[in-house]
């Protein structure tokens, strides 16, 4: 009754071998490396780049321990951190000759030092969280309302163009809170406008209001449009963050959406939080608006009384100017921005490329406003700055725009970078920040490791003393549990944090429960006078129901933590839940397989080494001496 069919042994053996293989990479440690990846979407890192890296290193006579090309970029290993730093400088010089316009990201990294065949079968070391490797974690809140307002502003500009194209006269278009209100003088025009808008702008829900002379059409964003705009804003912001973080040179940045309106940014190894924050926090957007040059208006504005619908700004040169609040174009319409020179004056300039809608609007505006001035504003953190306010000389079509005037080459580079790195679709605030120094990370690993190790040793010693052979088997099963858990964590590349290590320790502490239950049951059956083979079988059978029950209740708690937890709690919950699964397998199947191997083959088993089985009424009897 205590024999497993061959396939069960094989299953256990395979599980353990796989567990061993996937745990293995964790023992090799990491070696310092430099990673070269592309800072631009258009630039691909390929075998050529790899050759260039090799040449550059040879030229600088720096020895490396291996070079590797993967989907992220070219990675080169070095024997120590000194060489790594030297190599980084050398590569930086070769790949980014101009500091202002980096083409490649050269970042320090750590690579697993495990042999190639392990890496080839995706056996990687556990993915360490920031609290173990050091780095910065930001949680950014995206201001969705801001995104919607911006969209409504640009939509109302679109509507104005549309109505003019259709030659429909209105008495004013404006945004009031979260709706656009268009005034009409007669019902007929309003009707036509409504049809025209319904045909052209699908994202608006239209409502007719007012009567007599004061007729209004109130447009609000449809819920699905709002949702889409929100999703787009997040996506756009994530893209922008990617571009900006590339400037920082971080090896493995994590930029992810969390919930409906938050973005998580994790920068392992980055210590300079101030710079990271500065770069993340730059919320520059571009706006093109018209300048109000009507006589007397500027003087009124300077006197603190600007005409309705205008704002006072100061140009880069220092001269004040009045800019209309109505936005002609925003950075959303921008597809590219490159620094360059004006072909006629040889002044530094930024060349902008607009998308098709932007190009159309720009063409219309320039056609209608020849001779007037147009202001190009950079809006950073709610504050605007007029970069330049050129006079429109002719109609500009084709969506290619040039900004020039009073800019140095460096400024042109900066503006282009800021604009190209993308404008954020919506403003963001940092709502959570965590910085962990590298020394603390290393300490945390050591603490977690020590706790687990000593706890494990103590439990093992106790189990072996108390349950003898069954104690050895229980301890082996517990070791198998640890092996499988670490293998699973490595395989899934789940993030391991300090609470995660605590969960490993705790899971082991709790997992021994199953073995204690089994061993106690076996002892009890022996006490009741059952023959050893039957007692083993009975003990396992009876304990199983209890083990299942108790693990399911623990699992319920673990799942609740996984669903509702965030940050450190989540790290704990993931390991805890996985640990419950592996502990059921190892405590029931692995330990049973071991017991069967040891005792199952003996037909006439008379004694079982499970420690002293005490029987009421008699003196203590050691099972070894039992008849």
């Amino acid at each position, binding site marked *: 009754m205590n024999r497993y069919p061959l396939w069960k042994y094989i299953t256990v053996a395979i599980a353990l071998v796989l567990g061993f293989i996937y745990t293995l990479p964790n023992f090799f440690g990491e070696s310092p490396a430099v990673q070269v990846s592309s800072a631009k979407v258009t630039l691909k890192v390929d075998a050529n780049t790899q050759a260039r890296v090799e040449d550059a290193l040879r030229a600088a006579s720096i020895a490396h321990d291996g070079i590797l090309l993967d989907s992220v970029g070219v990675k080169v290993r070095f024997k120590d951190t000194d060489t790594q730093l030297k190599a980084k400088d050398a590569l930086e010089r070769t790949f980014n000759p101009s500091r202002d316009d980096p083409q490649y990201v050269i970042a320090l990294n750590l690579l697993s030092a495990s042999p190639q065949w392990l890496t080839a079968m995706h056996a990687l070391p556990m993915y360490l969280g920031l609290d173990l490797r050091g780095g910065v974690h930001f949680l950014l809140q995206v201001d969705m309302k801001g995104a919607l307002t911006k969209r409504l502003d640009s939509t109302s500009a679109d509507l104005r163009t549309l109505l003019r194209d259709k030659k429909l006269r209105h008495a004013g278009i404006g945004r009031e809170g979260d709706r656009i209100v268009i005034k009409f003088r007669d019902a007929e025009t309003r009707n036509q406008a409504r049809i025209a808008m319904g045909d052209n702008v699908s994202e608006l829900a239209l409502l007719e209001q007012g009567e007599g002379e004061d007729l209004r059409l109130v447009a609000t964003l449809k819920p699905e449009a709002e949702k889409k705009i929100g999703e787009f804003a997040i996506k756009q912001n994530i893209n922008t963050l990617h571009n900006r973080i590339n400037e920082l040179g971080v090896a493995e940045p994590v930029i992810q959406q969390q919930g409906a309106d938050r973005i998580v940014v994790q920068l392992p190894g980055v210590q300079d939080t101030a710079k990271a924050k500065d770069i993340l926090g730059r919320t520059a957007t571009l706006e093109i608006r018209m300048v109000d040059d009507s006589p007397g208006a500027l003087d009124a504005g300077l006197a603190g009384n600007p005409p309705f619908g205008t704002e006072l700004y100061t140009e880069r040169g220092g001269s004040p100017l009045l800019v209309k609040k109505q936005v002609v174009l925003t950075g959303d319409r921008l597809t590219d921005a490159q620094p360059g020179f004006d072909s006629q004056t040889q002044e530094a300039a930024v060349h902008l490329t607009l998308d098709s809608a932007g190009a159309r609007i720009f063409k219309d505006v320039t056609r209608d406003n020849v001779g007037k001035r147009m202001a190009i504003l950079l809006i950073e953190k709610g504050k605007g700055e007029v970069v330049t306010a050129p006079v429109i000389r002719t109609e500009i079509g084709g969506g290619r725009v040039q900004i020039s005037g009073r800019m140095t080459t460096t400024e042109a580079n900066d503006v282009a970078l800021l604009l190209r790195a993308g404008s954020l679709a919506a403003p963001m605030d940092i*709502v959570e920040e*965590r910085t962990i120094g590298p020394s603390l990370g290393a*300490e*945390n690993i050591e603490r977690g490791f020590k706790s687990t190790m000593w*706890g494990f040793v*103590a439990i093992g010693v106790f189990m072996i003393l108390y349950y003898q052979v069954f104690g050895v088997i229980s301890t082996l099963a517990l070791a198998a549990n640890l092996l499988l858990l670490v293998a699973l964590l490595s395989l899934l590349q789940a993030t391991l944090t300090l609470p995660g290590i605590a969960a490993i320790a705790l899971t082991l502490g709790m997992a021994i429960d199953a073995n204690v*239950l089994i061993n106690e049951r076996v002892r009890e059956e022996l006490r009741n006078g059952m023959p050893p083979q039957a007692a083993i079988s009975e003990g396992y059978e009876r304990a199983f129901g209890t083990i299942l029950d108790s693990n399911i209740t623990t699992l319920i708690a673990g799942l609740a*933590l996984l669903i509702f937890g965030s940050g450190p709690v989540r790290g704990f919950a993931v390991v805890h839940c996985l640990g419950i699964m592996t502990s059921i397998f190892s405590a029931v199947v692995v330990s049973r397989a071991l017991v069967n191997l040891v005792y199952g083959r003996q037909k006439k088993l008379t004694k079982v080494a499970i420690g002293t089985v005490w029987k009421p009424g008699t003196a203590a009897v050691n099972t070894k001496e039992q008849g």
Partner: protein
Amino acid sequence: MEFFRIKNDIPFMRHALKFNIISLITFLASVFFLATQGLHLSVEFTGGTLIEVNYAQSADLEKVRGALGKRGFSDYSVQNFGSSQDVLIRLPLKDVEGSAKQGEQVMEALNADAPGASLRRVEFVGPQVGKELAENGALALLIVVIGIMVYLASRFEWRFALSAIIANLHDVVIILGFFAAFQWEFSLSVLAAVLAVLGYSVNESVVVFDRVRETFKKVRGLSTPQVLDHAITSTISRTIITHGSTQIMVLSMLLFGGETLYYFSLALTIGICFGIYSSVLVASPLVMWLGVSREQFITQKKAVAEGTTDDGACV
């Protein structure tokens, strides 16, 4: 080795009332501390900034305080953390814009007036996030309670589910009571520990209840208290050894885990100690008073049969 040489069933149920009065008193004391002192919530829940710095020599806390005071910080707390070289600085929330920058401002202040500090860790949590964490924590607790009750009710009987959850919630309140009484810091990882304990000590009740059910079915002619006594006595050795083993692990974390795991393992220690007590000596009497009897299992036998341990099937 055999620690537990028990001849007859220990008459636990005779003292049921005493056990429950003891735990009622502990419970009320915990509620008292929770109500009067409240929990010392960590930055994660309240929002604010926490900065840990390390000095090469023993840190001069007065100097650090002075440096912060000079820069116009208010309501800050400065204390040693783990060792005399590590300093923990806590700052309350300001307006969002200001708070996100406090980390750098503090480092500037320290570099100017209390030099030699190296930054170990900064944690900043905005007000909204803190509120959400607290809400999610409460929600997680609720889901765990409901989930366990539903599971136990379907697996056993409503009486068992109710008494197990009462006994274990009372553990949770006692852990919280300790944290309130000693003003230990209640952080997210302590919350994780509390929930883990909840799932874990329900185990204990499950093991005892399993035995109760088995004894009711197998042995005739025992009164309910006798059945309960028998179930507790025959599982007591497993209870102590299991909890002892878990406690060994927790102790190891308490000793080697450093400051970060300290309160986590402290919460687990309290939870494990009271978990044994309550799930055995509080849950069982509750089941008895709720009127559990043999008939419930005889009539239920068919309905429950597929899930239960198959008695004697393998003999």
